[in-house]
Structure formats: C-alpha cells, structure tokens
C-alpha cells in the first residue's frame, strides 16, 4: 500500500480511507506485503496509526529516516487538535502513535530493501519536504515507481527530486500542478518579503499561521536572511517550542537538505536563527511591529487563533496564510473574503487586518512532471493527487511527447496494465551441446528457435531435451503419428498408383529424401504413404498418409499437394 493519508476536511470516519474495500472479514496483513510512506504530510501518513493500531494491520511499514522522526510529531500535533475539538471519538491516542512508529522500518536513499522473497523497494530523493522520497517497487523484472509529492526545482532548504533511468513499467506521479507552469519561486519570495516589510515599516504586526514543520522552516530562513540583509530590528517570534525541535531534525538530517545549506553548515548553521526568538504569550501585547509564526496553520484553535483575534481589528496588521485551509476554519473564511466572523457566543469579530495568501507549496509543475517522466522513461504513466480536468491536459501532453500510455483513474477505479515479464529459464547443457553440434554459432542479434521440453518445478523453469525430460520425470515415450486419407481417381493397380506418387513427389520435393520401398510404400523423411483400393469404387484409390509430429509441416504440405491430384501420365 502506497501512503496512508487522511482528509482533514472531515471530523468523522470519512477522514480515513475505507479499508474495508481491501477486505471485509479477513486480516489486512494477509492482503498487503507492506506499507510505504512517501513523506510526513498528513494527507500521506495521517491514517497510519488508525490503520495499524485500530484497524489491525500488523505488517511492516517503510519510510525514510527523517520521515520516521518527524511523522509522530505531526500525528501528535493533529491528535491534539482533534482531541481539542468536541466529539472526536474513534481517534488514535499517543500510545497508538508510538506503537505504530515501532512497526516502522526506516530506509536510506538508494538502499535496496528486500521486503520478502519477491518484493524489493528502493527510495529516491523527492525534494518537497525533509525526508520526502519516491519509491521504486520491484517484483522480478517488473517495477513501479511511486513519486509521492515531489519538487523538481530546489528551494531554500531542499534539493530537487532525482531518479535514475530505471524504466519502470509504470510511473505513478502526483499531478497537483498538472497545468501550471509556476512563476519563479524567487518572485513569490520577493512578493512575500515585500508584504512583510511594508507591514512592519508601517508599524503593523504580521501573523503567519503555520504547521510545526515544513514550510515554517523555509519561511524562517527567508525572513532571517532578509532581516540580516536589510538590517531590520522588528522582532520575529516563533510561537511554539517546535522550532527548536524541528530545527534539531533539520540539523540531524542535514544530508537531506540542499547543497548550499550543507556547504555553509560548517561556517554557520542555517537553522540557528539570530533574529527569530521564542514567543511568549505576553509579547502579543507589546507595542510596535513584530512578526509571529504561530500554530496551528488553519487558524482553527490554539495560539494562532488567539493572536489573530487580538490583532484582527487593526488595519495596520497583516495575516499571511501560507497554506490550504479546510472549510469551516477561520483561515478558510478569511481567505474566501469574509470580514465579519462569528465567534463563540454570537460575538462578531470584524477583520480589518490585511489578509494575504502566499503559496509556498513545493510540488513539481507541469514542466517538472514532464522532466521526471523523461528521466525515468516509464512504459506507462498513471496520474494521481490532482484534479481530473487538469490531469486530462497533462495526460495528452505526456502521451504526445513520450508516446506512452497515460492513465488517470478516479478514486476506486481499477486500471489493468498489460506487461510482458521476462521469466528466466535455465537450459540444460545437453541441449546446448546438441545445438552447438549443428554447427551454428550463437549470435546475440539473431534469435534462434530451439526445441526442447520446458519443465516447471519448484517455481523454476528449465528447458531440457525431451529424452532428459522423460528420464527426469520417469515417463515412458509415446510415438504420435498423424494420419490422413487422400482419394485419388486412378483406375490402375495400387502398385502403379504408388509408383506415380513416388515419381511425382520425387520431382516436386527435390530437397527431401523420397524413397520407394520394396513393399510398395513411399516415404518422404518420416512420412509414409501407402496406396490401397477403394472398397466400393474400383476407379478410386485411397492414399494412406501418416507422419510424425516433427514433420508436421511437411506432412500437411504433402497432403495438400496430393489432394490436388497427380499429373496426367505421359504414357
């Protein structure tokens, strides 16, 4: 199973996948060899503790080391938000998250992991977020690459996704930005910095609601560098203790970040910020400008919502939403332009502060997706994680440019792909020697027909000579002959008819050995022809033709020849 995510838009069972489609009564572990998690975002891993601890999957779970480290933090974060709300029954507990994480097998990049006798997986760097990976899944000679979410352009702290020319049978790729050619990331960053700068210059306070990990770190690096360059004095705060922890992980997994960060790491650690300090609740009332990163990212509870309420009434202030918000949350409401919000107890909060949306999500755009398809050279492509209309466009583009089939199944839809797996077959020495004895040297460019008996035993395939097969299997040989009767109009005696047949064949089949035997029958290789009188019609003779399996082609040819009749005798 590739990824095990949740839908944040629902507060009931609908937030998790319906696993009963895998099996209703059986045990899940019997149906799945393993679960692979591509990265720590909740739409990719949010249902994992539910799946392993509540639904009962008991098999291995694979993910990269950073994902293994960060995943429980986000799950814990989300659990707390869910518990904070009412009526959140059927949700996993802290202990379940831990027990689930104990089932995880962490993998390194480019390490081939043998899941079982047949299945092997291998992770490739995907950019997107710290620890994100694409996975190649291989069984025998057939393989699938699953991209998860990826980014083909490096950003401030991560590199670009990369995969080798692995030519999988199928590439399953995300298609979030299937039709977009994103404006350069630099532009978006400049825009963001300009907005923050303007707000701070006019003495306003800037609130940036974020989730603990991921985008927050990127924005921190951005602001830190800008503050340094512009020599700005306004304080920047990060509201939870999570930066510390998050930055700890970025330090720990420095090899997963981009080259620039790794290079400068020796002189200065990019994640140790000079300008960004821990936030205390009391600071929100301090006069003067400031920038605050606060959780959670959708303004639906906790600290970010509290600060928002405090600052919303002042038009000098600004809130920048750097990510998607689900329906119902304050974040969603202000992004859709609502300015009068109903809060608890029918209180109405008037939002006068500036509301901005800044997308920093790191997905590959259409160009990036095409680039990856070009890199991996798959036999076919399957688009997921996107909108049908946009996928349709990309699908056509892929099919035109790469001449491969591209699929975009809806949820729950099955796609069947024909593949031609190559199955290794052993060949016996005896058989090879016999072939060699025929004097033809093997030529890699010319495929050659080889007769033998294929033995399938203990999931092994071997090609041996039929004699050897008989011996090995303890079987007796049976001779099989094909027979056919051909009626000829010929009033002469049988011997004479046979003679006529002999001379006719002798003249037609020059390359074959045609013989007339003393008993009156005619042979061509293994084919035997005898002439007999017709029981009812004396003017007709019956030719009895029989041949072995080996001469089947010749036998058929010969009978069709005889059926055309014999040439008129030139007495």
């Amino acid at each position, binding site marked *: 199973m590739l990824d095990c995510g949740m*839908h944040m838009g*629902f507060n009931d069972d609908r937030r998790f996948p319906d696993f009963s*489609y895998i*099996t209703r*009564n059986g045990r899940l*572990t019997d149906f799945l060899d393993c679960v692979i998690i591509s990265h720590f975002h*909740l*739409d990719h891993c949010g249902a994992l503790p539910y799946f392993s601890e509540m639904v009962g999957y*008991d098999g*291995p779970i694979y993910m990269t080391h950073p994902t293994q480290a960060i995943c429980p933090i986000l799950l*814990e974060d989300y659990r707390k938000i869910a518990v*904070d*709300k*009412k009526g959140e029954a059927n949700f996993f507990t*802290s202990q379940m998250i831990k027990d689930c*994480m*104990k089932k995880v*097998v962490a993998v390194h990049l480019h390490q081939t992991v*043998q*899941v079982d006798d047949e*299945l092997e997986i291998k992770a490739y760097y995907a950019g997107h977020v710290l620890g994100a990976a694409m996975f190649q899944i291989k069984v025998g000679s057939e393989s699938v690459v699953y991209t998860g*979410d990826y980014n083909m352009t490096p950003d401030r702290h991560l590199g670009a996704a990369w995969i080798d020319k692995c030519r999988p049978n199928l590439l399953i790729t995300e298609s*979030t930005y299937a039709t977009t050619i994103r404006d350069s990331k630099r532009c978006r960053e400049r825009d963001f910095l300009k907005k923050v700068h303007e707000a701070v210059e006019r003495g306003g306070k800037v609130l940036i609601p974020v*989730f603990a990990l991921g985008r927050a770190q990127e924005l921190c690096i951005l602001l830190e560098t800008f503050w340094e360059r512009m020599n700005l004095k306004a304080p920047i705060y990060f509201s*939870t*203790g999570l930066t510390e*922890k998050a930055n*700890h992980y970025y330090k720990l997994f420095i090899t997963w970040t981009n080259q620039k960060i790794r290079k400068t790491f020796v002189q200065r650690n990019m994640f140790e910020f000079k300008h960004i300090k821990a936030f205390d*609740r*009391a600071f929100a*009332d301090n006069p003067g400008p400031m920038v605050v990163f606060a959780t959670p990212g959708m303004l639906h*509870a*906790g600290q970010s*919502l*509290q600060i928002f*309420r*405090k600052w919303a009434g002042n038009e000098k202030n600004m809130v920048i939403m750097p*990510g*998607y918000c689900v*329906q*119902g949350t*304050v974040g969603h*409401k202000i*992004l*859709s*332009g*609502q300015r009068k919000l109903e809060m*608890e*107890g029918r209180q109405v909060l008037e939002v006068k502060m500036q509301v901005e949306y800044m*997308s920093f*999500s790191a*997905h590959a755009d259409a160009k990036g997706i095409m680039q990856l398809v070009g890199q991996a050279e798959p036999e076919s492509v399957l688009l997921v994680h996107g*909108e049908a209309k946009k996928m349709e466009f990309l699908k056509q583009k892929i099919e035109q440019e790469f001449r491969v089939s591209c699929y975009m*199944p*809806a*949820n*729950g*839809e*099955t*796609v069947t792909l024909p593949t031609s797996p190559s199955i290794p077959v052993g060949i016996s020495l005896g058989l090879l020697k016999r072939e060699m004895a025929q004097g033809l040297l093997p030529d890699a460019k010319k495929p050659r027909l080889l007769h033998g008996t294929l033995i399938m035993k203990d999931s092994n395939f071997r090609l041996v000579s039929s004699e050897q097969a008989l011996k090995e299997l303890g079987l007796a040989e049976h001779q099989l002959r094909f027979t056919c009767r051909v009626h000829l109009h010929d009033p002469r005696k049988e011997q004479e008819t046979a003679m006529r047949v002999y001379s006719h064949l002798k003249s037609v089949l020059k390359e074959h050995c045609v013989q007339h035997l003393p008993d009156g029958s005619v042979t061509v290789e293994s084919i035997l022809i005898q002439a007999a009188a017709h029981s009812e019609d004396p003017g007709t003779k019956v030719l009895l033709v029989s041949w072995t399996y080996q001469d089947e082609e010749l036998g058929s040819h010969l009978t069709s020849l005889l059926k055309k009749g014999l040439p008129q005798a030139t007495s």
Partner: protein
Amino acid sequence: MDPECSQLLPALCSVLADPRQPVTDDTCLEKLLDWFKTITEAGSSLLLLQENPCLLGLLCHVLKPQDLSPRVLAFSLRLAGMLAAQEDCFQYLQQGELLPRLFGEAGPSALDSVPAEPRFLLSLPLSPTPGAVDTIFSLQGDSSLFVASAAGQLLVHVLGLSLQGPAEGHPGLQTGDWPVCAQKIASHIEESLRSAATPQITQALNVLTTAFGHCHNPWTQVLWVRLSPLVASLLEKDPVPAAHSLVDLLLSVARSPVLSSSSCGLWETLAQTLSHLSPTQAGPLALGILKLQECPQALRAQAFAVLLQPLTCVLEATAQAPGLLGMLLPEGGRVQEGSPRGSWARPCLAPHGRHLTWPQNSWVVMRACTTCWFPTQDRHTLASRLGASRLCDRGRATAPAVLVLEGRVLHLSVSGPRELVTQVFAVLLEYLTSPDSSPTVLKKAFQATFRWLQSSPETPGCSDLDPHAQLFLRDLLPVLPKRLCSPCWEVRDSGLEFLTQMIGRWGGQAGFRHALLASEVPELTEQLLRDPESYVRASAVAAMGQLSSQGLPLTPASPEHPGGQQSLLAELLHILSTDSEGFPRRAVMHVFTQWLRDGHADVARDTERFVARVLQVASRDLDWEVRAQGLELALVFLEQTLGRPSSHCPYAVTPPVAAPPSPLAQAPRPLCRVQLFEFAFRALFDCDRPVAQKSCDLLLFLRAQTASYSGPQGSGSVPEVASVEAALQRWQAGEQGQPLGYLEPEVVVAVLRSMDLEGLRGALAESSDRVEKSPRSLLQDMLATVGALGEDEADCY
C-alpha cells in the same frame, strides 16, 4: 431550519445549479447532505420542501440536459432520495413527476454520473423495475470498486424491497412465484455462479453474503435452497474460484438464524468446503465455524483439525527424524528432501523474507486459542502441539508465533499441566534472549511474558509470586539490561514499558524487589532518562516514577548520590522544565500526580513546596496537555486539602453540605500559598480549550467548597479584589503579562463569587468548533468560496 439558513439557501441553490460556478470542495456537499439528513430525521421532509422551494427548483434544474458537474448531479439525486424516504414527501415528488424523471427516464443519464459519485446509488428510491435492475447488473462489473460494491448492495436492497409484502411471510412460496424483478435477480445470481469467470462468481457470492447477512426473512431460505447446489458445485472446480468470498458467504449463511436452523445441507457444504480448500483458505473458515454457537460436533472437530494441521505436520516430521527441523529451516528456508510431508509443511514453516509466515495459520490458531471455547482435552492437545513452535523458530521468531504463545499462555494458566507451564516460559525466554528477535517480536514477547506472569497462580496464603514465576524472574532479569541497552529505541522502549508494568504489579513483593535491586536494571533505567529518543525518556520517567513509588531505592546511597530519591525529584523537575519534547514532560506530570495521590515520601515531606514548584513550571509549558495535567495535580491537592468531592466525577459541583465542615476556615490558605489560584485563573483563559474547561470545572468545584467560608465581612469591598478582577479581565482579553502575586484567601473567595463561571463554562462549551460546524457557517463558506479560492485548492497541507 434557522431563518438565516433559509435566507442563504436560495443563493446556494442557484450557485449549485450554475455550471459556471463549480464547487471545488466536495466535502462541502457531503456536509450539506449531513445537515439535510439531520433536518429530515428530526422533522417533515415535505415541510422542508414547501418552505424552501429553491430545493425543488434545484432538483428540477438537474433534469435539464446541460453541462452539470457529476458532483452536483449526484448530490441532487442523493438529496431527492433522502427526501423521498418519507411517504408524504415521496407522494409529493411523485405528483410532480420528479422522481420518475430523475430516476426513470433520466435514469440512464443519471447513472452516467455513477463513476464520479457512486454513493448516490444507495439513495436511489428505486421502484424495482426490471429495466433499472439491468443497469445495476452492468454496474456490478464497473471498473470503479466503489460503484461495483454499491451496485451489489443495491441489488440486495431491491431484492428485499420487491419481496416485501407478498413473499415475505410465506416460506413456502417458491422463487417461481416471486415478483418478476426478484426472479430476475435470482436468475442473474444463478447465471453468475455458473459463469466460468471468477469476477462474476465473486460478485454473485458477495451479493448473497450481503443478503444473508442483512435479511433474515423467510425468503432468504428459499433463495438459499435454490442456489446452494450451485454454490456447492464451485467446490468441484480446481482451484476453487473466489475462495475468500465463498468462505464469507458460507459463514454468513451459518450465522443467519433463518438458514442455520433449517436442514438445507449447510453443514455438509461446510464440511466439504473445509476439505476442498487449501489450508490457508480453510483457516478463516475453520475459525468461523468454531465461533458458531450451534454447530455439529463432527464439524467442529474437523475445523479444529484444519487449524492444527500445520502443527501436526511439524510434529510428525520431528517424530520421524529428530534433527529434521534443523534441516527444515536452513537460512534460505528451503525444505530438503526426505521430509515425509515436507512440501506441505514448508509453507507453514519457511521464513518468508522479513516476516515469517510461520505457520500461515498461526494467526488463526492464536485467535482460536484466545476467543474460542475448547473442550478440555482439545486444550491439552493444543498446548502440547504448540510446543513445537519452540522447535521451529529458534529465535527467528515472528510476531504471529509469539501471539500463538500468548494465547496459549492465557489458556494454560487456567488449567495447564505444570510441565507445560514451564515449557512456555522457556519459549518466551528464548525469544527474549535471542539476538535475532526483531523489535516487534520482542515487544510482543514482553507483552506475552507479562500476561504469563500475571496469570500465574499466586501461592495460597502468600503474597509472593508463584515459585515458577520466581524462577522465571531469576532468568528474566539478566535479559532486561541487554534490552535496555539496545541500539533500537523500539526495544529500549518496550523493555521499559514492560519494567513499569512489572513494578506496578509486583513492586510490593519481597522476592521481586530483591531480584530487581540485585540487577543493574534500576541504574540503567535512570540512565535512560537522558536517552536521545523522547519516547524512551518518557517511558524511563514512568518506570523511575514507579520504582520510586514502590520505595525502591534507585542507587545505593553512595558518596556520589547522597539521597537518591531526592535527586530523582530534582531530576524529574529538571526534565519538566527543560525537555524539548512533550512526551517526557507529560510523563513527569503523570508521575508527580501519582506521587501526590499516593502520599509519596518525598512529596509528603513538603507538599506545598512541591505543588507550588510543579505548578509554576507547568504553567509555562507550551504543551497544553502538560498544563491540563497540572490542573489534574492541582485537583488532587485540592481534594487533599478540602476533602474529596462526594460524587465519583471529580469535576462535579458538590453541594456545600457534602464538604467536611471543619477545615474550611483554614482551607484556602495553603491553596493560596502554592499559588494554585494564579495557575487556575491563568489556565481559565488559556488559548487551548481543554485547559480552560478543566480549570473552569476546578474553580466551580472550589467555589462550591468554599461557599460557607466566612472570611472578614464585606470582602467584596477590599480594594485588592477590584484589582484582581481588573487583572483577570485583562487576562481574558488576552494580556497575560503581570502575575497576580500572593492572594489572601478572602480575596480569592470574593473573586470566585463574583465571577460568572457558569457563563464561562457555557461559552467554552460553545467553542469555535461549534461555529465551524454550524450549517450557517457552511452555507456562508460555500457562498463565499465561489470564485474566491481557485488556485489555493491545489495547495495541500
């Protein structure tokens, strides 16, 4: 319906009907349906339609041929179905010819949208016409598994519906007398069962499983009598097609009260199936049979034999050649020649990559052990046969194998022969000591060991462990240090969890204490307080807390550690104030609360100082669960100072009469000294709701307790009260800068009396979440989103 919603609804309906304004977020449509469902369940659907003509307008609009999104079409059909579920509303819609047009003539076009929105299939108010049924048949083979599955369920609905009335009460009625529609479905299933294609057989089996699982009417018997020969004939094929579905069907038939009681050859079919299926396929069936309440003894025995078959093979093999198992399980897991039934035993034994499939049926066996009733002799056979598991694993054990043992442990402990009991713990010990055991196996082995110890009988008249367990402990304790030093955090953590459980259960018993203290376990546990992995630190905190609770000295008083206990308190406080992760801090709060509750010696030495320090640290914590736990601790302290609340619910408001009268006059003073009020008031305005709610409950309890407190008269006029109230108001407004400092009890009591805590509690209950979930908010959001979001949608979490 709320008038404001009624006002918003027409605008929303026109948005939905407009293909140029696509609804990008389909969760909104789902939530909208949820809302209509609550309305229709609570009141009249007809009234809803009449009061909101825009809904009817939407339904009519859907009928027009246009470029409507499948989402909106599906939404409208589901809505129509929901409304038509009420008789009068059905008539109303029928009069307007809306239903026939939606689901009749427009049927094919409506069904076109199925692949996009399969769920609406289930809300179709189908008048079971043969034409519609044909469409459903074809949808059974849809490439979308949602559609296919919904179509199957729908067939069962239609079948049930068409047999309502005439056939329902007459078991004697043959299928030939059924309504056309029902006959058509029965023939379709029959045809599918005869088919050579496995997917079709699977579909038919699934439909039957659903039918027999949900309907227990007499007609199900008629259907089964007609179809059972066909089902049985599936067994004649090799391999048996759709074996999983077949097992499901047979079990569902066996569980049906209508079918299992009748003599329609069910038991014979079950027996036949058990012998025809491959061992892995037969396993779940056998388990299901053992769970049946009434079932012939012979069949039960057969099922039992199926479950134990792998073990029988192992035993036979080992009996014939004692060294055979070594050969059976070389590194590659390939069976060598010479095993009598080797080829059979192999799938049961061979390690299969990382997770051994030993035996494929072991899961089933384990389930059988733990959940089914076995006659005594069976239990003994099982126990002795399972002994083989030790032979075949040799430390390469897998989770299922340990689970088997776990099940066995539970059963043997009830009435097992001594010898076997000992054998079990030898097996467990082997898992625990083996260097090859994976973290998962170790975790399960630890759990099984704890259960084993827990269920071992205590020697009568003595509080100590059973001698066997003592023996085991002697062997076990040397294992634990190795596990606590494991490079895998999973193993260290499981080891600590096990240790905590052990101390909690046997910490008071001399034998255990002695053995534990003689080992290096306590010292290692203490070192794990500084583990790099936060989960491990948290578990170490719990274990150390438990050790200390039981009065077990951590380290012998040495010159380096004068008074080990005292230093633990300091160490835990240090963790609480400095650890960067929430788990260890939460664990510390749990330990402290427990210590306070139990009157732990170090806490009792100066309880007030302890509580004051803990609350001070907890109030600054960024993790709301730590703050909430701080309130829990405050409550325990409160109970100890003021007396327990009479109700079993700790937060219930206790009437004043229930409080003990005497200490009241003095009571608030210690609370003031530990600055509990400052902590609670701060928590009252916490941005995280659970903390605020908990604090509100605590203060309400406190106010009730101090209701009869009579401090200096007219305390309301004391200037301090006004200043505290002003400070609290600022806090409520979000400014939490200045502390309150020490408060006199009378000031606190006066402030408590003047506060509208009930009002606050009500406001907290009506959280922003309620606003988020309200239908008005939903309608507003949907209207506001039109054209506003667009590109943002693509941006995921």
